[in-house]
């Protein structure tokens, strides 16, 4: 009972996080099997395996261990399954990137190798920094406007000094700093919504219209953002952020109307935007009629699907396919590589882990102690889930291609780091509030008598 809401010591935390520990061991075992499979294929295929090739797996094991120990030492009480799901997905990502040769540049190991371990450790750092309710400090005072200015400023700077490549705008070395917007904008909007929850929830009587006056600052911000992103031709990011905005408004105010109005607006906007952006319309054509220009606009997607077709149900095993025939497969099309080498079953496994991450995340959000935590959590989850859906849906030709990377698996440093920081934030929220004074705690307990009883009985039956 003491660990339910009160402070816990390290021994308690060690016990508490026992499931995480054993699950992480299995996680490592699974990924290790994949690496052995790859090493064997390379060896039989005539390639050489030296000590450097063992490094990715070693680093992976080390980062899992470090992450776990950090969290135990910090007496972190938050969610364990989200953590394991992310650990598995990033391990899978390392496996896939190692397979695609992203870690090797002319014999030496590249910086890409460090991205996954750094990301995992960064996630742990975010958790420690923001746990025990400290994440609320992110919405203190004028800080939320700092997030807003930071987001827009970053985009503006990028527009001025960035370089164009494949229709998008990048910073030096093809880094995409705009990825960090997925966190900063969520922080801003969640803060704004939590602060103005009452006025934003006051919809017109009779005609159900949203409160324009209260929405005005947000709408202005969004117009500028939309303009900047359209100039950068980053349609995918805009879609993700817009859906996250609507979700946060809905979660913060409980008004489903935001989703409905947003949906109608999105459909209207989509038509206009597609007309403006030339490469957008091309992508829609490649989506609707892939066989009209199979060797041109639809080449990449059809090659990806061909790879998946030859993978079939089980695939031929890691290292046995030929994903090099799909252009830039290691980033946006990594899912088709999984489909080619591990088959439909491998894809289903990846999707299941994503579903555990999102489902568990939703549970955390629904139980977050304050409105801000709920809004931030909902926003981050929406960003991740939308990105995952658009990537996988795009690769399987269910929706048009948006050029978004697959979280935790695709090649792309900024996207990876942003994903890890986002999940770190979500984990920090799952840690709940610091031990509160007795008065408010009892109030909470009286609130939750029935629920707690039910839970206790379930625990006893399990034991």
């Amino acid at each position, binding site marked *: 009972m003491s660990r*339910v*809401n009160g402070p816990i010591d390290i021994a308690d935390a060690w016990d508490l996080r026992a*499931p995480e520990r054993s*699950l992480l061991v*299995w*996680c490592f075992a*699974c990924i290790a*099997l*994949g690496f052995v*499979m790859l090493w*064997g294929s390379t*060896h039989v295929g005539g390639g050489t395996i030296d000590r450097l090739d063992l490094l990715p797996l070693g680093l992976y094991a080390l980062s899992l261990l470090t992450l776990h120990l950090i969290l135990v030492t910090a007496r972190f009480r938050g969610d364990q*399954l989200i953590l*394991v799901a992310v650990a*598995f997905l990033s391990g899978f990502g390392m496996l896939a990137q190692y397979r695609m040769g992203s870690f090797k540049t002319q014999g030496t190991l590249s910086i890409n190798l460090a991205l996954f371990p750094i990301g995992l450790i960064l996630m742990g750092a975010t958790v420690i920094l923001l746990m025990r309710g400290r994440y609320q400090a992110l919405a203190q005072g004028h800080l939320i406007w700092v997030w807003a200015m930071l987001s827009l400023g970053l985009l503006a700077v990028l527009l001025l000094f960035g370089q164009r490549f494949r229709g998008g705008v990048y910073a030096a070395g093809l880094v995409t700093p705009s990825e960090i917007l997925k966190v900063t904008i969520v922080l801003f909007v969640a803060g704004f919504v939590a602060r103005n929850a009452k006025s934003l929830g006051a919809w017109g009587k009779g005609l159900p219209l949203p409160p324009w006056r209260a929405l005005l600052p947000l709408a202005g911000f969004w117009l500028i953002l939309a303009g900047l992103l359209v100039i950068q031709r980053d349609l995918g990011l805009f879609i993700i952020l817009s859906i996250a905005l609507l979700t946060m408004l809905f979660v913060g105010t409980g008004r489903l109307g935001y989703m409905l109005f947003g949906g109608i607006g999105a459909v209207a906007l989509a038509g206009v935007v597609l007309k403006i952006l030339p490469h957008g319309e091309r992508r829609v054509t490649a989506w609707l009629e892939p*066989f009209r220009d*199979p060797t041109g606009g639809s*080449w990449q997607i*059809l*090659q990806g*699907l*061909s790879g*998946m*077709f*030859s*993978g*079939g*149900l089980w695939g031929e*095993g890691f290292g*046995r*396919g*030929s994903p090099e*025939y799909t252009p830039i497969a290691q980033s946006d099309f990594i899912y088709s590589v999984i489909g080619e080498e591990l088959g*439909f079953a491998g*894809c*289903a*496994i990846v*999707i299941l*882990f994503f*579903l*555990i991450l999102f*489902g568990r995340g939703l*549970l*955390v*959000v*629904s*139980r977050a*102690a304050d409105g801000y935590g709920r809004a931030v959590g909902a926003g981050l989850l929406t960003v991740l*889930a939308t990105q995952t*859906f658009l990537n*996988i*849906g795009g690769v399987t030709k*269910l929706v048009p291609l948006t050029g978004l990377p697959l979280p935790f698996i695709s090649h792309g440093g900024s996207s990876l780091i942003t994903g890890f920081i986002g999940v770190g934030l979500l984990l920090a929220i*799952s*840690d*709940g509030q610091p031990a509160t004074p007795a008065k408010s705690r009892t109030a*909470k307990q009286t*609130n*939750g008598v029935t629920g707690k009883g039910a839970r206790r009985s*379930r625990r006893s039956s399990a034991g």
Partner: protein
Amino acid sequence: MTTHLDPELWSLIRVGLHVGFFFAAAYLLRSMFNARSVTELRHLPRPKWSARVPIVLLTLLFIGILVYQATWQLIGTSRPEFIAFMQLHDRRALNPAHRIQRGRILDHRGEVLAYSEEILGQVYRLYPDGPAFAHVVGYSHPWFGASGMESVANVRLNGGAPDGLGDWGKLGRQLVTQDKRPRGQDLTLTLDAELQRMAFGLLEGKQGAIVAMRPEDGAIRTLVSAPSYDPNRITSALFQDSGPGAALLNRATQGLYPPGSTFKILLAALALQQGFSGTLECPADGFTTSPRYRKIRDHEYYTASKSGSTWTGQGSLDLATAFARSSNVFFAQLGVRYGHEAFYAMAEQMQLNRRIVLHETPYGAWSMRTGEIPRLDTSDRYGLAQMSIGQGAALVTPAHMALIAASIGNQGLAIRPRLIETDEPAPLAYFMSTSVAERLSAMLRQVVISGTGRGIDTPRLAIAGKTGTAENPQGASHSWFVGFAPAERPQLAVSVLVEHGGYGSATAAPIARDLLLRALDLGLIE
């Protein structure tokens, strides 16, 4: 690692690791599912709202992706365009699409015209009689795509879209065994390989086309276009040649030629339909609609003037005699007499200015052009007179002339030509009434007995037909013969065109006779 791993052993280990990976992942998933109550976040307050609804929605969304993905990844064989794309553009050696056992293409007796053979793991498409059948069978090539029947019937040859419980069951077995190699269906054509080879041989060294079809059910027995190409050896040079000698052009179905005197069949049908009886005066000097235009004369006039003598002319001719002698003066007058309206009505009734689809699938169509009869101004009577003798602006395809001959042989009713044996015969249109067809049939027979075609008359077979000698701006006249045999109950209609072959009676008619006699030997005519 210096030790060498035996590939045989490795393939076993690999399967073990592969299965192990899936089991480990599945075990991890199960453990996480079981750990959900142990790891419950007891320190957090009760939920404000139920997370169940969004979780279910999200799960459904992603299951939707997986289901859609399965339609490509697992049952991609039901997407014929996708299979075709992979066969053409996918270089993955392991892709099952490359090992699809494509069906064979056969003639109506079962002789193989195209088949696939696996040589060192690579599947090749082979054509035993290459050039002779190229314009019908087409080619299927990894770089240059597919044409002809190979393209139109691609779906059937690849195994087709599943359309029955059995097909789906087969698909299921392929899924589990990873053997995505549907055995394609064979395609049987109406062509007669022997007759086709003979026809191709008759056109050797020439440019032209031969079409032979059964009047009663539209089955095409021969469709040859020369020059041809070898579908076993496709090169890019083939596609760059767009000149008049292009081998890729199907002259039988797409080549537009002035019909010359063979067009008098249409005019004769028109006259019979209008109830023409009696005679027309045909002066030796010729006929014109206005003194400003060159006179249209009979070929005897030119023969005589070449030898320095004077020709006395035909005098007064009736329709049958004029037809047998192929009198230009007679038919030019006839066309002008009935006028533009009647002329175009006849052209319309005989389906000119059309494209007739022989076989159509969502993945391509096999069609033939009929001809081009441009609409002339009603004041242009000289143009009409010229078209009435098959010159001037009138253009037709050899295939359509065969179809017209077939319609006469089938009491006026044209059956849609077909190349695929299993296609049901379907009526296309009445080109003329039954009585007109019967009388025209007798007139065609008369041409061979006593008219311009008498050179090919043979006691073995009663051939009926019309010769044609079509002047053209490119050089010597095109040589035509259009007809059928036997005259009293026609079983094979034929159309022969030899580009710049001179007189129809000298070049095309003997080819038609040889072909029909061969058909008699082969039992195609009884």
